[in-house]
């Protein structure tokens, strides 16, 4: 089963975003339409009401492919909430990060049962007791990437404006703005 998931993940990798949320239970979080395809102009199969239980098959951009008891189709990503899981305590073999990242990447799930031990690092108490570490700060320079470094990602940039009211670019009226 895991192998199968791994291969299907590989197949979909080029076509879909990486959240292969295969067979994950979720609910519809607001009344919404079930579409036949992941486009807003696609044919509407039916209306889904809030709290409808669904199974997520995969994600493609802003859409989840889902199935209900009676139908299969696409819903808007933002109209879905995943079923709640306990990260460590209740369900040690199925903590959320393991499930999601394991499925998405084909990574073997750890056999070690995660126990509900205290979580280390950056708790409120640890932050309260922190002694500044300037050496650790300076050591970050070793991994810094220069502004003019080559883009190794292969990604293409897009021109997208901040939404109204956000960001420095639209507040040009202020003489103190340092932005280009």
């Amino acid at each position: 089963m895991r192998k199968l998931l791994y291969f299907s993940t590989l197949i979909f990798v080029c076509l879909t975003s990486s959240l292969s949320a295969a067979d994950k239970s979720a609910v519809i979080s607001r009344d919404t339409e079930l579409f036949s395809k992941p486009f807003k102009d696609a044919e509407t199969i039916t209306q889904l009401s809030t709290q409808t239980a669904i199974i997520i098959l995969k994600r493609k951009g802003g859409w989840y492919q889902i199935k209900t008891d009676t139908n299969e189709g696409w819903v808007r990503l933002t109209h879905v909430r995943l079923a709640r899981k306990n990260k460590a305590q209740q369900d040690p073999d199925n903590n959320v990060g393991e499930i999601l990242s394991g499925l998405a990447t084909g990574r073997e799930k750890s056999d070690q049962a995660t126990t509900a031990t205290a979580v280390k690092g950056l708790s409120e108490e640890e932050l309260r007791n922190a002694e500044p570490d300037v050496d650790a700060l300076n050591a970050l320079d070793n991994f810094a990437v220069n502004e003019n470094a080559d883009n190794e990602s292969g990604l293409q940039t897009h021109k997208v404006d901040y939404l109204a009211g956000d960001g420095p670019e639209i507040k040009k009226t202020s003489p103190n703005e340092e932005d280009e």
Partner: protein
Amino acid sequence: MKFFLHLTSLLFLVSFSLSTPALDFGGFGLGGGGNEEEGNSIDIGELFDGIKDISRTITGIDEEAEIEIGRDAAAVLLGASKPVNDPDLQRYVNKVGRWVVNQTSRPHLPWRFAVLSSDHVNAFATPGGNIFITDGLLRTLNGEAELAAVLAHEVAHVIQKHHIKAMSSLNTSGLSGVLKLAGQTSSGQSNQLTTAMVGQVKDMYLRGLDKDDEFEADRMGVVIASRAGYDPFALVAVLQTLDSINPEDSSLALLYKTHPPASDRLDRLDSSLAQFEDPVEESPLLEKRFNTYVARRP
């Protein structure tokens, strides 16, 4: 929430009128206006003028001071949790982060990205461009687009100087008080943070930023990540994952003490995402390098 902003602004006004304009750090102007001198009765118009003055003051903070405050804050956070000892991973996160910040108005800042060896689910930014993501959060992420989404949210805080604003609102002397503390740290005892500055930094990270600034960072982060060519819906996927974890889980304690609930953030983002209808295809290259450096770690 607006009410809180007004209150904060009022505090600012009062603190600015009390403190002398002779500040330790040069290079930042108090801006025009000057309504704060008018005295007792504050009408709405003056209040709004005051808000404008304050935001102008904070956006006009000298960049060197901003970076210095940010280094102090970063040193404190690194006192609570060390970077993961994995040079390939740290370099990878810096590559992703650098590509993201190059799509903003402030690529010239000394940006540093690091994964901290904490099991808590959280991410932090400090002024001037230090961005930290915990290993606990990194391990819940699925793919580079989600990593970029988290980094872009933190980057937005830096672009908008949200932390400077938050620290100023906590300091009884406002921004001038923060600058004074930072000045003592850098000039007085080199590399030695004053107790007061350390306390100020901790206070801010324990209280968190203004909630509206968190929502703004979500909206701006989506835009920044999208500019960089990443799937703009990746932040939604991250928040849905967080929303699916039991909020009582101790690894989420500080995150939820300092941030709005993930479900509120999802509700707010919904309307902001309408413009991103076209699906973005993720490249096999990104999948490969995310797996190599993040997902398939021991």
